[in-house]
């Protein structure tokens, strides 16, 4: 440590130190600003009311629409989505219609050759009634499920989660 620091070195270090400090003072806030979407907390989900009476739900999957207020940054809007809903014994099942291949919309029994399956028209994807994808068709996993409930006799829909029926 007896090495002498030359005047040039000293100036170099001080200038670089001050310079880095100033650059960091600018870059850090702007960096944090830019990556903010990574740190925004997910909106907590509340159950959404539908207009379908729980008693009307049959074993045949039916399309149930539901609307909710979506907060997208500074933009608030009412968004409508739907689920395929059917009864399985005591349970009510709600499946997401979003195909697990590339995200097209699947529908129940629209393929004449597969009257007891969900069908995706985009690349002929097929799913069983419980959402399980049929091997040999493009989808790579089963359809997602929605949390369901009954409030005042009406069906309520909650968060989406990976299929637990298969």
């Amino acid at each position, binding site marked *: 440590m007896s090495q002498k620091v030359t005047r040039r070195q000293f100036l170099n270090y001080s200038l670089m130190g001050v310079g880095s400090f100033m650059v960091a003072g600018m870059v850090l806030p*702007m960096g944090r600003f*830019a990556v*903010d979407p990574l740190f925004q907390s997910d909106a907590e989900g509340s159950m959404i009311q539908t207009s379908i009476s729980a008693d009307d739900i049959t074993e045949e999957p039916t399309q149930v629409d539901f609307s909710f207020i979506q907060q997208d940054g*500074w933009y608030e809007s009412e968004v409508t989505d739907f689920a395929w809903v059917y009864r399985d014994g005591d349970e009510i099942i709600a499946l997401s219609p979003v195909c697990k291949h590339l995200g097209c919309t699947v529908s129940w029994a629209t393929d004449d050759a597969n009257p007891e399956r969900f069908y995706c028209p985009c690349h002929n994807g097929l799913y069983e009634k419980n959402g399980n994808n049929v091997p040999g068709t493009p989808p790579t996993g089963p359809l997602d499920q929605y949390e369901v409930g009954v409030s005042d006799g009406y069906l309520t829909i909650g968060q989406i989660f990976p299929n637990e029926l298969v």
Partner: protein
Amino acid sequence: MLNRIYDWIDDRMDITPIWRDVADHEVPEHVNPAYHFSAFVYCFGGLTFFIVVIQIISGMFLTMYYVPDIVNAWESVYYLQNEVAAGVIVRGMHHWGASLVVVMIFLHTLRVFFTGAYKAPRELNWVVGVLLFLVILGLAFTGYLLPWDMKALFATRVGLDIAASVPFIGDWIQTLLAGDEEIIGAQTLARFFAIHVFFLPAALFVLMAVHFIMIRRQGIAGPL
């Protein structure tokens, strides 16, 4: 480590002469505050450039959230300032920097004026400097409308009325700026945004390049 990376690149690319040519030049005694403290007035040009750089970078980041649309503009500014982390700082840099850059360019102009640095052979660079001043004022004017609050709206109304007072062609200028003969609205905001983030910055870059090349060619004006 850094040295070795530098050497590796320099061996192949010979980059040393490039940055030497940019960075290595004489700083005459009469402009060096270490010799004469009053020479700090010669820093005003560099400080103007520094703030312009801050404006450009902070402005680029603001456009990640800002939308130039009359329904959403105010909400998006409110959101980026209050909901996004460091939003107050980033908007603050751009907001205060906008005033500071006008102050600095004005001080720089005063320095050039009172040291007589605009005289031959530097007349052309004075002309470019005046154009730079106008571009900066244009940026400050067009940027002021973007938050789309009441202050922005009425300031722009005044500005457009001033533009309309130009003899003969005033009304055309006003309509061209506002995008409509009467309304200050959707079309005005879209235009001001385009001018603020594309057209004027482009002009600014070209003029700054010309400004700096001329300074290197002609050197800094001699002492009083």
